[in-house]
Protein backbone atom coordinates (compact mmCIF):
# COMPACT_ATOMS: atom_id res chain seq x y z
CA UNK A 1 0.00 0.00 0.00
CA UNK A 2 1.10 3.51 -0.84
CA UNK A 3 2.94 5.06 2.12
CA UNK A 4 0.60 8.05 2.01
CA UNK A 5 -2.30 5.79 2.98
CA UNK A 6 -0.67 3.86 5.81
CA UNK A 7 -2.18 4.22 9.25
CA UNK A 8 -0.72 6.58 11.83
CA UNK A 9 0.11 3.60 14.06
CA UNK A 10 2.03 1.92 11.25
CA UNK A 11 4.17 4.94 10.35
CA UNK A 12 4.77 5.58 14.05
CA UNK A 13 6.20 2.04 14.29
CA UNK A 14 8.41 2.67 11.26
CA UNK A 15 9.71 5.87 12.85
CA UNK A 16 10.50 4.14 16.15
CA UNK A 17 12.74 1.57 14.46
CA UNK A 18 14.45 4.04 12.18
CA UNK A 19 12.96 2.41 9.07
CA UNK A 20 11.71 5.79 7.97
CA UNK A 21 12.40 9.39 8.93
CA UNK A 22 9.94 12.13 9.78
CA UNK A 23 11.41 14.23 6.99
CA UNK A 24 10.54 11.46 4.51
CA UNK A 25 7.01 11.14 5.88
CA UNK A 26 6.47 14.89 5.78
CA UNK A 27 7.70 14.95 2.19
CA UNK A 28 5.22 12.19 1.32
CA UNK A 29 2.35 14.27 2.72
CA UNK A 30 3.52 17.50 1.10
CA UNK A 31 3.86 15.70 -2.21
CA UNK A 32 0.33 14.31 -1.92
CA UNK A 33 -0.90 17.81 -1.08
CA UNK A 34 0.98 19.19 -4.06
CA UNK A 35 -0.63 16.65 -6.40
CA UNK A 36 -4.24 16.93 -5.29
CA UNK A 37 -4.81 20.08 -3.28
CA UNK A 38 -5.87 22.12 -6.31
CA UNK A 39 -8.78 19.72 -6.76
CA UNK A 40 -9.62 18.95 -3.14
CA UNK A 41 -8.99 22.32 -1.41
CA UNK A 42 -8.59 20.70 2.01
CA UNK A 43 -6.25 23.38 3.38
CA UNK A 44 -6.50 27.10 4.09
CA UNK A 45 -2.81 27.34 5.03
CA UNK A 46 -0.01 24.87 4.30
CA UNK A 47 2.86 25.36 6.76
CA UNK A 48 5.60 23.45 4.93
CA UNK A 49 8.55 25.37 6.42
CA UNK A 50 7.31 24.80 9.95
CA UNK A 51 6.60 21.16 9.15
CA UNK A 52 10.09 20.48 7.77
CA UNK A 53 11.68 22.18 10.75
CA UNK A 54 9.61 20.12 13.17
CA UNK A 55 10.40 16.96 11.18
CA UNK A 56 14.14 17.58 11.43
CA UNK A 57 13.87 17.95 15.21
CA UNK A 58 11.67 14.89 15.49
CA UNK A 59 14.25 12.83 13.60
CA UNK A 60 16.95 13.89 16.07
CA UNK A 61 14.73 12.78 18.96
CA UNK A 62 14.12 9.35 17.39
CA UNK A 63 17.81 8.94 16.52
CA UNK A 64 18.84 9.69 20.11
CA UNK A 65 16.43 7.05 21.35
CA UNK A 66 17.47 4.45 18.77
CA UNK A 67 21.20 5.05 19.44
CA UNK A 68 20.71 4.84 23.18
CA UNK A 69 21.84 8.45 23.67
CA UNK A 70 18.53 9.14 25.38
CA UNK A 71 16.50 6.82 27.57
CA UNK A 72 13.36 8.90 27.09
CA UNK A 73 11.25 7.18 24.42
CA UNK A 74 9.55 9.79 22.22
CA UNK A 75 5.75 9.87 22.04
CA UNK A 76 4.17 7.67 19.33
CA UNK A 77 3.18 10.95 17.69
CA UNK A 78 6.76 12.20 17.45
CA UNK A 79 7.49 12.88 13.78
CA UNK A 80 3.97 12.13 12.56
CA UNK A 81 2.49 14.72 10.16
CA UNK A 82 -0.97 15.97 11.18
CA UNK A 83 -3.42 18.63 10.01
CA UNK A 84 -5.36 21.00 12.28
CA UNK A 85 -8.82 22.47 11.59
CA UNK A 86 -8.64 26.22 11.10
CA UNK A 87 -10.78 27.05 14.16
CA UNK A 88 -8.08 25.61 16.43
CA UNK A 89 -5.21 28.01 17.15
CA UNK A 90 -1.62 27.11 16.33
CA UNK A 91 0.85 29.77 17.40
CA UNK A 92 2.17 32.01 14.62
CA UNK A 93 0.10 30.33 11.90
CA UNK A 94 -2.99 32.12 10.56
CA UNK A 95 -6.27 30.90 12.12
CA UNK A 96 -8.96 32.04 9.72
CA UNK A 97 -11.94 30.07 11.08
CA UNK A 98 -12.91 29.90 7.38
CA UNK A 99 -13.87 33.57 7.53
CA UNK A 100 -12.91 36.88 5.94
CA UNK A 101 -13.19 38.29 9.45
CA UNK A 102 -10.06 36.40 10.56
CA UNK A 103 -8.27 36.04 7.23
CA UNK A 104 -5.15 37.66 8.64
CA UNK A 105 -5.46 36.70 12.30
CA UNK A 106 -2.26 35.16 13.66
CA UNK A 107 -2.75 33.61 17.11
CA UNK A 108 0.01 34.58 19.55
CA UNK A 109 -0.48 31.28 21.41
CA UNK A 110 -1.16 27.59 20.87
CA UNK A 111 -4.47 26.04 21.78
CA UNK A 112 -3.94 23.45 24.52
CA UNK A 113 -4.66 20.68 22.00
CA UNK A 114 -2.02 22.03 19.58
CA UNK A 115 0.45 22.56 22.42
CA UNK A 116 0.08 18.96 23.56
CA UNK A 117 0.60 17.70 20.01
CA UNK A 118 3.58 19.99 19.55
CA UNK A 119 5.15 18.81 22.82
CA UNK A 120 4.66 15.22 21.67
CA UNK A 121 6.68 16.04 18.55
CA UNK A 122 3.87 15.95 16.01
CA UNK A 123 4.35 17.73 12.68
CA UNK A 124 1.93 20.50 11.66
CA UNK A 125 1.28 20.27 7.91
CA UNK A 126 -1.22 23.09 7.92
CA UNK A 127 -4.69 24.39 8.81
CA UNK A 128 -7.65 22.74 7.20
CA UNK A 129 -10.72 24.25 5.59
CA UNK A 130 -13.93 24.61 7.54
CA UNK A 131 -17.40 26.08 7.25
CA UNK A 132 -17.12 29.64 8.54
CA UNK A 133 -16.81 29.61 12.35
CA UNK A 134 -17.65 25.88 12.16
CA UNK A 135 -21.21 26.72 11.11
CA UNK A 136 -22.27 24.26 8.49
CA UNK A 137 -22.52 20.65 7.41
CA UNK A 138 -20.75 20.74 4.07
CA UNK A 139 -17.68 23.05 4.21
CA UNK A 140 -19.44 25.13 1.51
CA UNK A 141 -19.74 28.07 3.90
CA UNK A 142 -16.00 28.68 3.90
CA UNK A 143 -14.83 32.07 2.67
CA UNK A 144 -12.05 30.20 0.88
CA UNK A 145 -14.13 27.98 -1.37
CA UNK A 146 -15.62 24.56 -0.68
CA UNK A 147 -13.56 21.46 -0.03
CA UNK A 148 -14.22 18.64 -2.51
CA UNK A 149 -14.82 15.07 -1.43
CA UNK A 150 -11.85 12.89 -2.51
CA UNK A 151 -14.31 10.07 -3.36
CA UNK A 152 -16.16 12.29 -5.85
CA UNK A 153 -14.83 15.77 -6.44
CA UNK A 154 -18.31 17.08 -7.38
CA UNK A 155 -19.54 16.31 -3.89
CA UNK A 156 -19.12 17.81 -0.46
CA UNK A 157 -16.83 16.18 2.10
CA UNK A 158 -19.39 16.98 4.80
CA UNK A 159 -18.77 19.64 7.42
CA UNK A 160 -17.80 21.59 9.20
CA UNK A 161 -14.53 19.62 9.56
CA UNK A 162 -14.59 18.81 5.83
CA UNK A 163 -11.02 19.92 5.23
CA UNK A 164 -9.67 17.63 7.97
CA UNK A 165 -11.75 14.66 6.81
CA UNK A 166 -10.73 15.18 3.17
CA UNK A 167 -7.04 15.60 4.04
CA UNK A 168 -6.94 12.27 5.89
CA UNK A 169 -9.08 10.52 3.27
CA UNK A 170 -6.87 11.78 0.42
CA UNK A 171 -3.63 10.59 1.99
CA UNK A 172 -2.46 14.14 2.67
CA UNK A 173 -2.15 13.64 6.42
CA UNK A 174 -1.93 10.74 8.87
CA UNK A 175 -4.52 12.26 11.13
CA UNK A 176 -6.25 15.53 11.84
CA UNK A 177 -8.01 17.49 14.53
CA UNK A 178 -11.53 18.66 13.90
CA UNK A 179 -14.32 20.10 16.04
CA UNK A 180 -17.79 18.74 16.69
CA UNK A 181 -20.62 20.97 17.92
CA UNK A 182 -23.57 19.22 16.25
CA UNK A 183 -21.79 16.45 14.35
CA UNK A 184 -19.00 18.29 12.57
CA UNK A 185 -16.40 15.54 13.12
CA UNK A 186 -18.63 12.49 12.82
CA UNK A 187 -20.58 13.56 9.73
CA UNK A 188 -17.61 14.47 7.47
CA UNK A 189 -15.86 11.32 8.72
CA UNK A 190 -18.81 9.27 7.45
CA UNK A 191 -18.92 11.11 4.11
CA UNK A 192 -15.17 10.71 3.56
CA UNK A 193 -14.81 7.11 4.75
CA UNK A 194 -12.62 7.83 7.79
CA UNK A 195 -12.97 7.42 11.56
CA UNK A 196 -14.34 10.44 13.42
CA UNK A 197 -14.29 10.63 17.22
CA UNK A 198 -16.10 13.22 19.33
CA UNK A 199 -14.99 12.87 22.96
CA UNK A 200 -17.17 13.51 26.02
CA UNK A 201 -17.76 17.24 26.57
CA UNK A 202 -14.90 18.44 28.73
CA UNK A 203 -12.52 15.61 27.82
CA UNK A 204 -10.40 17.87 25.59
CA UNK A 205 -9.63 21.49 26.46
CA UNK A 206 -11.36 24.22 24.47
CA UNK A 207 -8.61 26.74 25.26
CA UNK A 208 -7.53 28.16 21.91
CA UNK A 209 -10.59 26.81 20.09
CA UNK A 210 -12.43 29.64 18.35
CA UNK A 211 -15.80 29.36 20.10
CA UNK A 212 -19.09 28.59 18.34
CA UNK A 213 -21.43 26.99 20.93
CA UNK A 214 -19.56 26.83 24.20
CA UNK A 215 -21.73 24.19 25.89
CA UNK A 216 -21.57 21.97 22.78
CA UNK A 217 -18.12 22.44 21.17
CA UNK A 218 -15.56 19.67 21.48
CA UNK A 219 -12.28 19.05 19.67
CA UNK A 220 -12.24 15.60 18.02
CA UNK A 221 -10.07 13.43 15.79
CA UNK A 222 -10.21 12.34 12.12
CA UNK A 223 -8.08 9.26 11.40
CA UNK A 224 -7.98 6.18 9.19
CA UNK A 225 -8.38 3.68 12.02
CA UNK A 226 -9.75 3.44 15.55
CA UNK A 227 -6.22 2.64 16.76
CA UNK A 228 -5.05 5.97 15.34
CA UNK A 229 -7.91 7.79 17.09
CA UNK A 230 -6.80 6.29 20.42
CA UNK A 231 -3.23 7.46 19.82
CA UNK A 232 -4.35 11.04 19.14
CA UNK A 233 -6.89 11.16 21.96
CA UNK A 234 -4.32 10.01 24.50
CA UNK A 235 -2.20 13.07 23.79
CA UNK A 236 -4.85 15.78 23.59
CA UNK A 237 -7.24 14.64 26.36
CA UNK A 238 -7.00 15.67 29.99
CA UNK A 239 -7.75 18.45 32.48
CA UNK A 240 -6.54 21.97 31.70
CA UNK A 241 -6.35 24.86 34.17
CA UNK A 242 -6.90 27.25 31.25
CA UNK A 243 -10.33 25.73 30.54
CA UNK A 244 -12.45 25.33 33.64
CA UNK A 245 -15.03 23.32 31.69
CA UNK A 246 -12.60 20.41 31.34
CA UNK A 247 -13.25 17.24 33.30
CA UNK A 248 -10.98 17.29 36.30
CA UNK A 249 -10.22 13.57 36.33
CA UNK A 250 -7.30 12.32 34.26
CA UNK A 251 -8.16 10.22 31.22
CA UNK A 252 -7.53 6.45 31.33
CA UNK A 253 -5.02 4.63 29.14
CA UNK A 254 -6.81 4.49 25.77
CA UNK A 255 -3.99 2.49 24.24
CA UNK A 256 -4.92 -0.53 26.40
CA UNK A 257 -7.94 -0.89 24.15
CA UNK A 258 -5.72 -1.84 21.27
CA UNK A 259 -4.65 -5.12 22.82
CA UNK A 260 -8.26 -6.33 22.49
CA UNK A 261 -8.58 -8.56 19.47
CA UNK A 262 -11.17 -10.93 20.76
CA UNK A 263 -14.91 -10.49 20.58
CA UNK A 264 -17.79 -8.46 21.93
CA UNK A 265 -19.25 -11.03 24.34
CA UNK A 266 -20.90 -9.29 27.24
CA UNK A 267 -21.29 -6.00 25.38
CA UNK A 268 -24.88 -4.75 25.12
CA UNK A 269 -25.54 -2.61 22.06
CA UNK A 270 -28.71 -0.52 21.83
CA UNK A 271 -30.70 0.05 18.66
CA UNK A 272 -33.39 2.69 18.41
CA UNK A 273 -36.06 1.58 15.98
CA UNK A 274 -38.01 4.79 15.54
CA UNK A 275 -36.07 7.07 13.27
CA UNK A 276 -36.23 10.77 13.77
CA UNK A 277 -37.56 13.12 11.13
CA UNK A 278 -36.61 12.45 7.53
CA UNK A 279 -35.84 9.18 5.85
CA UNK A 280 -32.64 7.25 5.39
CA UNK A 281 -31.06 6.61 2.01
CA UNK A 282 -31.76 2.85 1.47
CA UNK A 283 -28.06 1.89 1.17
CA UNK A 284 -27.31 3.75 4.44
CA UNK A 285 -30.11 1.86 6.17
CA UNK A 286 -28.83 -1.44 4.80
CA UNK A 287 -25.20 -0.77 5.81
CA UNK A 288 -26.23 0.12 9.34
CA UNK A 289 -28.36 -3.05 9.58
CA UNK A 290 -25.42 -5.10 8.28
CA UNK A 291 -23.17 -3.53 10.91
CA UNK A 292 -25.62 -4.51 13.63
CA UNK A 293 -25.53 -8.07 12.28
CA UNK A 294 -21.72 -8.01 12.38
CA UNK A 295 -21.71 -6.78 15.98
CA UNK A 296 -24.15 -9.53 16.90
CA UNK A 297 -21.97 -12.06 15.10
CA UNK A 298 -19.02 -10.81 17.14
CA UNK A 299 -20.93 -11.64 20.32
CA UNK A 300 -22.71 -8.42 21.22
CA UNK A 301 -26.23 -8.56 22.64
CA UNK A 302 -28.59 -6.32 20.66
CA UNK A 303 -31.14 -4.51 22.83
CA UNK A 304 -33.98 -2.25 21.80
CA UNK A 305 -33.86 1.28 23.27
CA UNK A 306 -36.12 4.31 23.18
CA UNK A 307 -34.99 7.90 22.85
CA UNK A 308 -38.38 9.63 22.67
CA UNK A 309 -37.11 13.21 22.82
CA UNK A 310 -34.53 13.01 20.04
CA UNK A 311 -37.26 14.01 17.59
CA UNK A 312 -37.08 17.49 19.14
CA UNK A 313 -33.31 17.52 19.45
CA UNK A 314 -32.86 19.45 16.22
CA UNK A 315 -34.95 22.41 17.38
CA UNK A 316 -33.32 22.42 20.80
CA UNK A 317 -29.86 22.19 19.27
CA UNK A 318 -30.28 25.00 16.76
CA UNK A 319 -31.84 27.32 19.32
CA UNK A 320 -29.10 26.72 21.89
CA UNK A 321 -26.18 26.64 19.42
CA UNK A 322 -27.24 29.80 17.64
CA UNK A 323 -27.97 31.65 20.87
CA UNK A 324 -24.52 30.77 22.18
CA UNK A 325 -23.01 31.67 18.82
CA UNK A 326 -24.64 35.10 18.80
CA UNK A 327 -22.94 35.78 22.14
CA UNK A 328 -19.59 34.27 21.13
CA UNK A 329 -19.39 36.15 17.86
CA UNK A 330 -20.09 39.51 19.48
CA UNK A 331 -16.33 39.80 20.04
CA UNK A 332 -15.72 40.30 16.31
CA UNK A 333 -15.99 44.06 16.32
CA UNK A 334 -12.75 45.05 14.61
CA UNK A 335 -11.20 46.43 17.77
CA UNK A 336 -8.63 43.99 19.16
CA UNK A 337 -8.28 41.49 16.30
CA UNK A 338 -9.80 40.57 12.97
CA UNK A 339 -10.54 42.82 10.05
CA UNK A 340 -11.71 46.37 10.70
CA UNK A 341 -13.88 48.48 8.39
CA UNK A 342 -13.75 51.92 9.88
CA UNK A 343 -16.87 54.08 9.86
CA UNK A 344 -17.46 57.66 10.94
CA UNK A 345 -17.80 56.58 14.54
CA UNK A 346 -17.62 53.48 16.72
CA UNK A 347 -21.16 52.29 15.96
CA UNK A 348 -20.54 52.46 12.21
CA UNK A 349 -17.22 50.68 12.63
CA UNK A 350 -18.98 47.78 14.35
CA UNK A 351 -21.71 47.63 11.70
CA UNK A 352 -19.35 47.88 8.74
CA UNK A 353 -16.82 45.41 10.17
CA UNK A 354 -19.40 42.78 10.99
CA UNK A 355 -21.60 43.17 7.92
CA UNK A 356 -18.57 42.89 5.71
CA UNK A 357 -16.61 40.24 7.58
CA UNK A 358 -19.29 37.60 8.15
CA UNK A 359 -20.77 35.35 5.47
CA UNK A 360 -24.47 34.68 4.93
CA UNK A 361 -24.86 31.54 7.06
CA UNK A 362 -23.04 33.12 9.99
CA UNK A 363 -25.29 36.18 9.81
CA UNK A 364 -28.34 33.94 9.61
CA UNK A 365 -27.33 32.07 12.75
CA UNK A 366 -26.41 35.21 14.67
CA UNK A 367 -29.83 36.63 13.81
CA UNK A 368 -31.62 33.41 14.89
CA UNK A 369 -29.66 33.28 18.11
CA UNK A 370 -30.30 36.92 18.87
CA UNK A 371 -34.02 36.43 18.23
CA UNK A 372 -34.15 33.39 20.54
CA UNK A 373 -32.66 35.45 23.35
CA UNK A 374 -34.62 38.68 22.99
CA UNK A 375 -37.11 39.75 25.62
CA UNK A 376 -40.49 38.30 24.80
CA UNK A 377 -39.07 35.27 22.99
CA UNK A 378 -36.53 33.96 25.48
CA UNK A 379 -39.00 31.75 27.37
CA UNK A 380 -40.61 30.33 24.27
CA UNK A 381 -37.39 29.49 22.51
CA UNK A 382 -34.15 29.43 24.47
CA UNK A 383 -35.52 28.38 27.85
CA UNK A 384 -37.72 25.70 26.28
CA UNK A 385 -34.71 24.43 24.34
CA UNK A 386 -32.71 24.10 27.55
CA UNK A 387 -35.50 22.08 29.11
CA UNK A 388 -35.74 19.79 26.09
CA UNK A 389 -31.98 19.39 26.44
CA UNK A 390 -32.52 18.01 29.96
CA UNK A 391 -35.06 15.53 28.58
CA UNK A 392 -32.68 14.39 25.80
CA UNK A 393 -29.94 13.89 28.37
CA UNK A 394 -32.26 11.87 30.61
CA UNK A 395 -33.31 9.69 27.64
CA UNK A 396 -29.66 8.75 27.13
CA UNK A 397 -29.06 8.14 30.84
CA UNK A 398 -32.00 5.76 30.92
CA UNK A 399 -30.91 3.98 27.74
CA UNK A 400 -27.34 3.59 29.04
CA UNK A 401 -28.63 1.87 32.17
CA UNK A 402 -29.57 -0.99 29.81
CA UNK A 403 -26.83 -0.85 27.16
CA UNK A 404 -23.13 -0.03 26.86
CA UNK A 405 -23.39 1.72 23.50
CA UNK A 406 -26.04 2.78 21.01
CA UNK A 407 -25.52 2.05 17.29
CA UNK A 408 -27.16 3.93 14.46
CA UNK A 409 -26.65 5.97 11.30
CA UNK A 410 -24.40 9.03 11.27
CA UNK A 411 -26.14 10.96 8.51
CA UNK A 412 -29.31 10.32 6.45
CA UNK A 413 -27.50 10.27 3.11
CA UNK A 414 -24.06 9.82 1.62
CA UNK A 415 -22.19 12.89 0.35
CA UNK A 416 -24.50 15.23 -1.59
CA UNK A 417 -23.46 17.34 -4.57
CA UNK A 418 -21.79 20.69 -4.04
CA UNK A 419 -24.49 23.36 -4.32
CA UNK A 420 -27.35 20.91 -3.77
CA UNK A 421 -28.43 22.07 -0.29
CA UNK A 422 -26.77 25.44 0.15
CA UNK A 423 -29.89 27.44 -0.75
CA UNK A 424 -32.05 25.52 1.70
CA UNK A 425 -30.69 26.04 5.21
CA UNK A 426 -33.30 23.87 6.87
CA UNK A 427 -32.47 20.90 4.60
CA UNK A 428 -28.82 21.39 5.46
CA UNK A 429 -29.61 21.43 9.21
CA UNK A 430 -31.53 18.13 8.86
CA UNK A 431 -28.34 16.33 7.82
CA UNK A 432 -27.17 16.60 11.44
CA UNK A 433 -30.23 14.89 12.81
CA UNK A 434 -28.46 11.77 14.11
CA UNK A 435 -25.43 13.48 15.55
CA UNK A 436 -26.62 16.56 17.37
CA UNK A 437 -28.39 14.81 20.24
CA UNK A 438 -24.97 13.52 21.32
CA UNK A 439 -23.74 17.10 21.66
CA UNK A 440 -26.83 18.13 23.62
CA UNK A 441 -26.17 15.31 26.08
CA UNK A 442 -22.39 15.88 26.14
CA UNK A 443 -21.72 12.20 25.43
CA UNK A 444 -18.95 10.74 23.26
CA UNK A 445 -19.57 9.35 19.77
CA UNK A 446 -17.52 7.68 17.06
CA UNK A 447 -18.23 7.35 13.36
CA UNK A 448 -16.80 4.26 11.61
CA UNK A 449 -16.65 3.41 7.89
CA UNK A 450 -19.17 0.58 7.35
CA UNK A 451 -19.86 0.37 3.64
CA UNK A 452 -20.37 2.15 0.34
CA UNK A 453 -23.43 3.11 -1.67
CA UNK A 454 -24.04 2.22 -5.31
CA UNK A 455 -22.08 5.27 -6.47
CA UNK A 456 -19.09 4.19 -4.42
CA UNK A 457 -19.61 6.83 -1.76
CA UNK A 458 -18.64 6.02 1.85
CA UNK A 459 -21.22 5.24 4.54
CA UNK A 460 -20.54 5.60 8.26
CA UNK A 461 -22.09 4.02 11.33
CA UNK A 462 -22.21 5.79 14.68
CA UNK A 463 -21.64 4.46 18.18
CA UNK A 464 -22.67 6.64 21.10
CA UNK A 465 -21.70 5.90 24.69
CA UNK A 466 -22.29 7.30 28.17
CA UNK A 467 -20.05 10.12 29.44
CA UNK A 468 -16.38 9.10 29.71
CA UNK A 469 -16.90 5.84 27.83
CA UNK A 470 -14.32 6.50 25.12
CA UNK A 471 -12.42 3.33 26.09
CA UNK A 472 -15.57 1.29 25.48
CA UNK A 473 -16.34 2.96 22.15
CA UNK A 474 -12.75 2.55 20.98
CA UNK A 475 -12.80 -1.13 22.02
CA UNK A 476 -15.98 -1.90 20.09
CA UNK A 477 -14.68 0.07 17.11
CA UNK A 478 -11.29 -1.63 17.20
CA UNK A 479 -12.81 -5.13 17.35
CA UNK A 480 -15.19 -4.19 14.52
CA UNK A 481 -12.22 -3.05 12.42
CA UNK A 482 -10.37 -6.35 13.04
CA UNK A 483 -13.39 -8.13 11.53
CA UNK A 484 -14.06 -5.78 8.59
CA UNK A 485 -12.00 -3.86 6.05
CA UNK A 486 -14.21 -0.89 5.11
CA UNK A 487 -11.66 1.45 6.63
CA UNK A 488 -8.92 0.13 4.34
CA UNK A 489 -10.52 1.36 1.12
CA UNK A 490 -8.98 4.49 -0.39
CA UNK A 491 -10.41 6.97 -2.87
CA UNK A 492 -9.24 6.76 -6.47
CA UNK A 493 -7.62 10.15 -6.88
CA UNK A 494 -5.60 10.23 -10.07
CA UNK A 495 -2.58 12.29 -11.01
Amino acid at each position, binding site marked *: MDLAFQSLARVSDLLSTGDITSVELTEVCLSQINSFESEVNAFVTISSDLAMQQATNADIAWQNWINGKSDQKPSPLNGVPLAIKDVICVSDVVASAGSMMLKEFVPPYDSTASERLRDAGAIFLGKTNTDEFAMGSSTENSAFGPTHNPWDLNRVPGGSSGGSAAAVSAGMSYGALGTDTGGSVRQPAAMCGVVGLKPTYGRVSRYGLIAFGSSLDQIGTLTRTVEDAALLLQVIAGPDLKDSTTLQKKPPNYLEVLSRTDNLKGVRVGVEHEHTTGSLQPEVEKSVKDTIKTLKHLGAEIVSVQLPHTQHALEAYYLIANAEASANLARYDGI*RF*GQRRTGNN*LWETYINTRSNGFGKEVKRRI*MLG*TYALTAGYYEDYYLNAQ*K*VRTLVQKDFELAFSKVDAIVGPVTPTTAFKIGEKIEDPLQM*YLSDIFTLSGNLAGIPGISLPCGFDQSGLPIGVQLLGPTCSEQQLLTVGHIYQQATDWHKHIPGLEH
Partner: protein
Amino acid sequence: MASTISTNEVVRIAQLARLHLTENELKSFGKDLSEILDYMNQIKKVDVSNVRPTDNTLYLHTILRPDEAHPSLSIDKLLSNAAEVDNGYFSVPPVLGQN
Protein backbone atom coordinates in the same frame (compact mmCIF):
# COMPACT_ATOMS: atom_id res chain seq x y z
CA MET B 1 -49.09 27.88 10.37
CA ALA B 2 -46.44 30.23 9.11
CA SER B 3 -45.04 32.72 11.54
CA THR B 4 -43.80 35.46 9.31
CA ILE B 5 -41.31 37.81 10.82
CA SER B 6 -41.97 41.39 9.83
CA THR B 7 -39.29 43.43 8.13
CA ASN B 8 -39.30 45.72 11.16
CA GLU B 9 -38.44 42.83 13.43
CA VAL B 10 -35.64 41.70 11.14
CA VAL B 11 -34.22 45.23 11.19
CA ARG B 12 -34.48 45.33 14.99
CA ILE B 13 -32.67 42.00 15.39
CA ALA B 14 -30.00 43.09 12.93
CA GLN B 15 -29.44 46.23 14.98
CA LEU B 16 -29.06 44.19 18.17
CA ALA B 17 -26.52 42.03 16.38
CA ARG B 18 -24.71 45.07 14.99
CA LEU B 19 -25.40 44.02 11.42
CA HIS B 20 -26.55 46.09 8.48
CA LEU B 21 -28.67 44.29 5.92
CA THR B 22 -29.32 45.42 2.35
CA GLU B 23 -32.89 45.48 0.95
CA ASN B 24 -32.36 42.08 -0.66
CA GLU B 25 -30.80 40.64 2.47
CA LEU B 26 -33.74 41.89 4.54
CA LYS B 27 -36.14 40.04 2.26
CA SER B 28 -34.14 36.81 2.08
CA PHE B 29 -33.29 36.74 5.78
CA GLY B 30 -36.90 37.48 6.64
CA LYS B 31 -37.98 34.51 4.58
CA ASP B 32 -35.24 32.18 5.91
CA LEU B 33 -35.85 33.16 9.52
CA SER B 34 -39.61 32.69 9.15
CA GLU B 35 -39.17 29.23 7.69
CA ILE B 36 -36.64 28.15 10.27
CA LEU B 37 -38.61 29.58 13.19
CA ASP B 38 -41.69 27.83 11.89
CA TYR B 39 -39.84 24.55 12.26
CA MET B 40 -38.41 25.59 15.63
CA ASN B 41 -41.93 26.27 16.89
CA GLN B 42 -42.34 22.48 17.19
CA ILE B 43 -40.36 22.76 20.40
CA LYS B 44 -43.41 24.30 22.02
CA LYS B 45 -45.18 20.93 21.64
CA VAL B 46 -42.92 19.22 24.19
CA ASP B 47 -44.24 18.82 27.70
CA VAL B 48 -41.56 20.49 29.77
CA SER B 49 -43.59 21.04 32.92
CA ASN B 50 -41.41 20.44 35.98
CA VAL B 51 -38.28 20.09 33.87
CA ARG B 52 -35.22 22.06 34.91
CA PRO B 53 -33.21 23.73 32.15
CA THR B 54 -29.70 22.43 31.43
CA ASP B 55 -27.12 25.00 30.52
CA ASN B 56 -24.15 22.69 30.72
CA THR B 57 -23.84 18.92 30.75
CA LEU B 58 -21.02 18.78 33.25
CA TYR B 59 -22.67 19.70 36.59
CA LEU B 60 -19.82 22.16 37.01
CA HIS B 61 -18.42 23.59 40.15
CA THR B 62 -16.07 26.54 40.36
CA ILE B 63 -12.43 25.68 39.70
CA LEU B 64 -10.13 27.71 41.93
CA ARG B 65 -6.41 28.33 41.84
CA PRO B 66 -4.00 30.09 44.22
CA ASP B 67 -4.08 33.88 43.87
CA GLU B 68 -0.57 34.10 42.40
CA ALA B 69 0.56 36.29 39.52
CA HIS B 70 2.25 34.53 36.61
CA PRO B 71 3.77 35.89 33.40
CA SER B 72 1.23 36.40 30.65
CA LEU B 73 1.59 37.27 26.97
CA SER B 74 3.68 40.36 26.18
CA ILE B 75 1.91 43.58 25.21
CA ASP B 76 3.48 43.36 21.77
CA LYS B 77 1.92 39.97 21.16
CA LEU B 78 -1.44 41.10 22.48
CA LEU B 79 -1.47 44.12 20.17
CA SER B 80 -0.10 42.21 17.18
CA ASN B 81 -3.50 41.57 15.59
CA ALA B 82 -5.02 44.98 16.15
CA ALA B 83 -5.99 47.07 13.12
CA GLU B 84 -4.72 50.25 14.77
CA VAL B 85 -2.34 50.65 17.65
CA ASP B 86 -1.20 53.86 19.36
CA ASN B 87 1.62 53.87 21.86
CA GLY B 88 0.76 50.50 23.41
CA TYR B 89 -3.02 51.04 23.23
CA PHE B 90 -5.74 49.76 20.91
CA SER B 91 -6.77 52.78 18.88
CA VAL B 92 -10.51 53.16 18.20
CA PRO B 93 -12.87 55.68 16.57
CA PRO B 94 -14.54 58.17 18.94
CA VAL B 95 -16.84 56.50 21.48
CA LEU B 96 -18.81 59.58 22.41
CA GLY B 97 -20.68 61.80 20.02
CA GLN B 98 -22.61 59.04 18.21
CA ASN B 99 -26.40 58.56 17.83
